[in-house]
């Protein structure tokens, strides 16, 4: 990983996570990153498994599923270009909270979580930027999750009485 793919640095700048950062910062980030590709249908990681890379999606969609006993896998979110995957590699304990599946051919930038944390520790200016973007992405995800939780499209009709005949 000593030789950095120049297109990778360029792509990092294009993605919202690193957009607007100086060349120096991007180069540092690119140095600990690599492109990874997953064929459609590939399980990128499974719920509970260890994973040490943070992914920035460059192309293709990824489905996140959580397993519920008796209901099976429930899809909770799909991610696409520009979005973060596997943030628990950075701020969790490295065990994944959901199963990620490539729904299409996926290309992503994988950033080594341990090295990124190390970079953040050594260079607080970079650490601040990374954590700020991460916090933004997570707060955004939290709001989206709350909206899902509100179940906005469900409708209750409490004042409509069911006919006793129909109840039979």
């Amino acid at each position, binding site marked *: 990983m000593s030789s950095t793919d120049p297109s990778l640095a360029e792509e990092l700048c294009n993605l919202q996570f690193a957009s607007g950062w100086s060349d120096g910062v991007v180069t540092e980030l690119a140095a600990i990153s690599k492109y990874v590709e997953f064929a459609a249908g590939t399980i990128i990681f499974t719920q509970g498994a260890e994973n040490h890379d943070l992914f920035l999606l460059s192309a293709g969609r990824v489905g996140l599923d959580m397993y519920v006993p008796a209901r099976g896998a429930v899809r909770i979110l799909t991610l696409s270009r520009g979005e973060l995957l596997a943030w628990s590699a950075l701020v969790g304990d490295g065990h994944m909270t959901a199963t990620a599946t490539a729904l299409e051919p996926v290309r992503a930038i994988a950033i080594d979580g341990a090295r990124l944390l190390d970079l953040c520790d050594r260079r607080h200016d970079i650490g601040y930027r990374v954590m700020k973007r991460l916090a933004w992405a997570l707060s955004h995800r939290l709001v989206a999750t709350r909206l899902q939780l509100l179940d906005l499209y469900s*409708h*209750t*009709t*409490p*004042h409509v009485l069911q006919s006793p005949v129909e109840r039979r």
Partner: protein
Amino acid sequence: MTANASTESEFFFARAGLQQLIDVLRTRGYKVVGPTIDQGAIIYDEIASVDQLPQGWTDQQEPGQYRLERRNDEAWFGYVVGPHSWKRYLFPPLATVSVADKTAAGWQMTSSPDPSPKYAFLGVRACELAAIKIQDRVFLGGAYVDPIYRDRREQAFVIAVNCTMAGTNCFCTSMNTGPRCRTGFDLALTELPDGFLIEVGSDSGSEIVRELQARVAELAESQAAEQARLQAELQITKKLDTTDIRNLLLTNLEHPRWADVATRCLSCTNCTMVCPTCFCTSVSEVSDLQGDHVERHRQWDSCFNLDFSYMNGGNVRNDIRSRYRQWLTHKLASWIDQFGSSGCVGCGRCITWCPVAIDLTVEVAAIRGETP
């Protein structure tokens, strides 16, 4: 009357002329509705004789209180306004808006067959003229016209009476609606000890005057009438500061006063019912046993009713705070956006007839930050 009297002139008739006026109108097919005493109050009801007028009585009003009292004279119009307003007749509390009948070809809908009564209103005060003008804008002034109101309004003959006294809860001067009757009447009377000064406001008013034993008023009579009207104006003590009131209320939708008034307000609808401009209604279906003949009945409703804002299983305005806020902000603020004027005419009915004595002028002052 003199043949060449202009409609601008003021006329005078003796007290006996009032019965004559009622008789002329009744002969012309009008149902004359005027003030009369019933249930301890001066209400508006159909009358045939001056004997039914509240002669010698006045009304003593406070927030949440109304009492009849004897006057020390025999005036017929020596009171201000009571629990009824003319909207009861122009915009009846219950009306059939349409009828549906099931036929071989399916449902057929027709307009209400109810005829529109031809009313003459006797004793309409300046604030009430203003209220009628406001309801005209609501029901006749937009793209859609309410046919029930229109038919009654077009036929109505309006005899205004100038106030010669004011009540504690009157604030028409704040709303620029009175106490002087200026427009919107066919005839306007000012009661004097020995008769009435008459102003004519329309051709049909002029036509009626011609049938009365009226003469052109003398200067002293005009001056006496002016003096009596002035007396009413001077008696008004209640004030509502309307300065920038639209923005005051619409930018204070989260003011703590709304929660405060909600502890007192009963959400009982009385203020909206006695208000001469409130126009909210609901329609209900009334069908025969077979369900083949259905009438749609429109009834007075109120924004204070919980279910008024019912939508998809929930009520938008789900507490008294939001319902009182809706009423007051609509009446005094958003009404201006909708109809180009305030919805309040300063008659004070909502203050008198609130069973817990809530006074909107006090509430507005509180929102304005003034200590009541």
